[in-house]
């Protein structure tokens, strides 16, 4: 494998280019530098084998936070994108050309997201821009991609509603995810009084509203809704309030490291055995791999991918990713988002027969890819995915067990307001009227 620098300060490490072929050890040494290395290009041996060595590379800009508070969500995804690129190259590249990722560390700082997006599109001539973790960073990057007529893939779960021809999101959006979760928890399990806790920003606010909507739709009751700033880590007051109210179930859309403390503090005071917890976000920050068996066991989630999904595709992805990254711990949904986003884009390029952003944007609708979490199809109307949603319950080994799967859920709510086939110039982020 070779590590190349970004254009602009282009220098290569000569002794890394000399090697022919590669083995597991080489992959590992590559990934040790990967947490910060600039560009991931597949090794010369691999490219030679695929007959790609001579062609100019297709350039992918990946702008994610390797440094700073959000890197829990990014680090595995950075590697998963690199792995996807490697797989594409091994299978003969794209349109007969090799693919290369340029990585920019946005350091959890939106100002850098803005500068790197501009640099990637104008100076480094990226064919596609990936990245951004928060909605704030996405909304910083999206107008720039619009302005310079690029194509942007946002590999993240978010509050939904973005209707943009030059944009694609392979992650879950609330109506897709919340409805199955509430149907299971409130409908099937009959837990009729729900206490909602959510992170205090757009995602949390909207998810809480979706939760209320579906809960009320089933004739159940949302007894309280509370929002927490992302840096709150002392949950003693809310634990006392929950005990005052005595709900049947606690629904959580809490996000980030500080909020992870909630699950710890909950287990040492109330306990899931007396009042269960269901969550839309648990596991995204790989909470399940960090918390103790007691804290993880029985927590109900709705997700599009987790390691122990049990399908051959999922197990294959997990074992290949572990070999590629040299890391043996839980892989998780965000890594898989990175892989699926890249593969869907590759499919769109093949369909368009070109890497030009306009052609890819026009071709991406309807493209599908059989991935680790099931079949993913890009909905042509919204550029979001139709995918399987799995209800699962945390187990004692730091992962989840499937309870049931909801097949091929479309982003129906967004479809009601967004139609990129008829109106490709739309760039609005719609808010659901709840």
């Amino acid at each position, binding site marked *: 494998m070779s590590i190349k620098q970004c254009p602009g300060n282009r220098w290569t490490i000569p002794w890394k280019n000399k090697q022919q072929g590669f083995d597991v050890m080489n992959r590992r040494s590559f990934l040790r530098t990967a947490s910060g290395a600039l560009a991931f290009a597949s090794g010369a041996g691999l490219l030679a084998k695929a007959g790609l060595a001579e062609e100019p590379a297709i350039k992918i800009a990946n702008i994610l936070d390797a440094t700073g508070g959000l890197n829990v969500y990014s680090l595995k995804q950075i590697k998963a994108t690199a792995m996807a690129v490697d797989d594409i190259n091994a299978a003969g590249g794209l349109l007969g050309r090799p693919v290369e990722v340029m990585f920019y560390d946005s350091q959890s700082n939106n100002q850098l997201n803005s500068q790197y997006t501009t640099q990637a599109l104008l100076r480094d001539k990226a064919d596609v821009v990936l990245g951004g973790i928060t909605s704030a960073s996405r909304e910083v990057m999206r107008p720039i991609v619009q302005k310079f007529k690029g194509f942007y893939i946002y590999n993240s779960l978010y509050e939904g509603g973005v209707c943009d021809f030059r944009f694609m999101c392979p992650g879950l959006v609330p109506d897709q995810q919340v409805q199955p979760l509430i149907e299971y928890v409130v409908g099937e399990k009959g837990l009729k009084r729900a206490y909602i806790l959510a992170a205090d920003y757009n995602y949390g606010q909207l998810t809480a509203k979706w939760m209320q909507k579906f809960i009320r739709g089933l004739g159940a009751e949302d007894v309280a809704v509370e929002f927490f*700033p992302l*840096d709150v*880590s002392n949950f003693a007051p809310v634990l006392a*309030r929950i*005990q005052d109210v005595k709900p049947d179930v606690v629904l959580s859309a809490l996000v980030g490291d500080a909020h992870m403390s909630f699950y*710890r503090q909950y287990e*040492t*005071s*109330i306990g899931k055995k007396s009042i269960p917890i269901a969550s839309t976000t648990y596991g995204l920050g*790989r909470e399940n791999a960090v918390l103790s068996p007691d804290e993880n066991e029985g927590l109900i989630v709705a997700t599009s991918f987790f390691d122990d999904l049990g399908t051959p595709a999922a197990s294959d992805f997990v074992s290949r990713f572990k070999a590629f990254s040299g890391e043996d711990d839980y892989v998780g949904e965000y890594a898989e988002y990175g892989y699926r986003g890249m593969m869907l884009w590759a499919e769109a390029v093949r369909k368009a027969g070109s890497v030009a952003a306009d052609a890819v944007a026009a071709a991406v609708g309807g493209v599908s890819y059989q991935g680790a979490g099931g079949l993913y199809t890009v909905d042509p109307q919204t550029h979001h995915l139709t995918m399987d949603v799995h209800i699962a319950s945390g187990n004692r080994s730091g992962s989840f067990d499937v309870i049931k799967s909801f097949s091929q859920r479309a982003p129906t709510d967004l479809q009601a307001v967004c139609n990129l086939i008829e109106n490709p110039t739309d760039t609005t982020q719609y808010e659901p009227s709840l």
Partner: protein
Amino acid sequence: MITTYIYLIAYAVALLALISLGLSVIFGMMKVINLAHGEFMMLGAYACVYCSSLGLPFWASLIVATLAVGCFGLVVERLLIRHLYGRIVDTLLATWGLSLLLIGVSTAVFGPQARSMPGIPGTVAIGGTTMSVYSFVLIGVTILMMLVTWLIATRTKVGLVVRGTMQRPDIAGALGINTNLVYMGTFGFGAAAAGLAGAMLAPLTGATPLMGAAFVSKAFINVIVAGGLPLIGTSLASAMFGTVDAVISYLASSVAGEVAVLVFAVVLLRMLPQGITGRFRRGF
């Protein structure tokens, strides 16, 4: 109901005092603002998690973590802080650099993911509300730590020498006291207190490279409002802020609680521009 209030207030006050003591000793005694305070806590948390993963019992892990961060503090004083005494703003920059460095190194070494450890399990039910045993342990440890600090400072020869040196280093030096050693020891003690705080937090919040950031501004404000006296000031300020935070967070929301604390801090500083204990002539 009333027990819930008492519990929440005691817990919030203890938490605040716990995370502030190290900073307040270093600021109050040495006039050094240690922006790496949060990262000292983070190191304490990691040390505690590490010891506990080796199979050490909780209390032993706590003690090892405290001592380890204390030693680290000694090294930092010797290599960095020593060159910057009397330059309050430069120490700010240097310790901010140290804080970034420690965050970066610990992310590279431990990874970004939180590390957990078990605390002391069990719950207590009082008046219909279940509370974790660990929160009472935290309150107890905080009281113990304050008590020990107070005893060392006021009832031992070492404490006398340290307080004397901080007030008049020149005279202390003339009396044959090795002031360098005193400074180093005081900084080490402050670091150890931060380490203990981090270790106590580890079972609650887990150890992550960025955990310090969430606490440092709270501790900082607490210490400044406390004024010159590290122990009395910190206790009083923690008592006030903790009460405001707990009551408002319980009645309204966490945001309201935090904003109320900050507004209260500004009002206090307006009325007492030197901090609560700024006018106190004596005490510790």
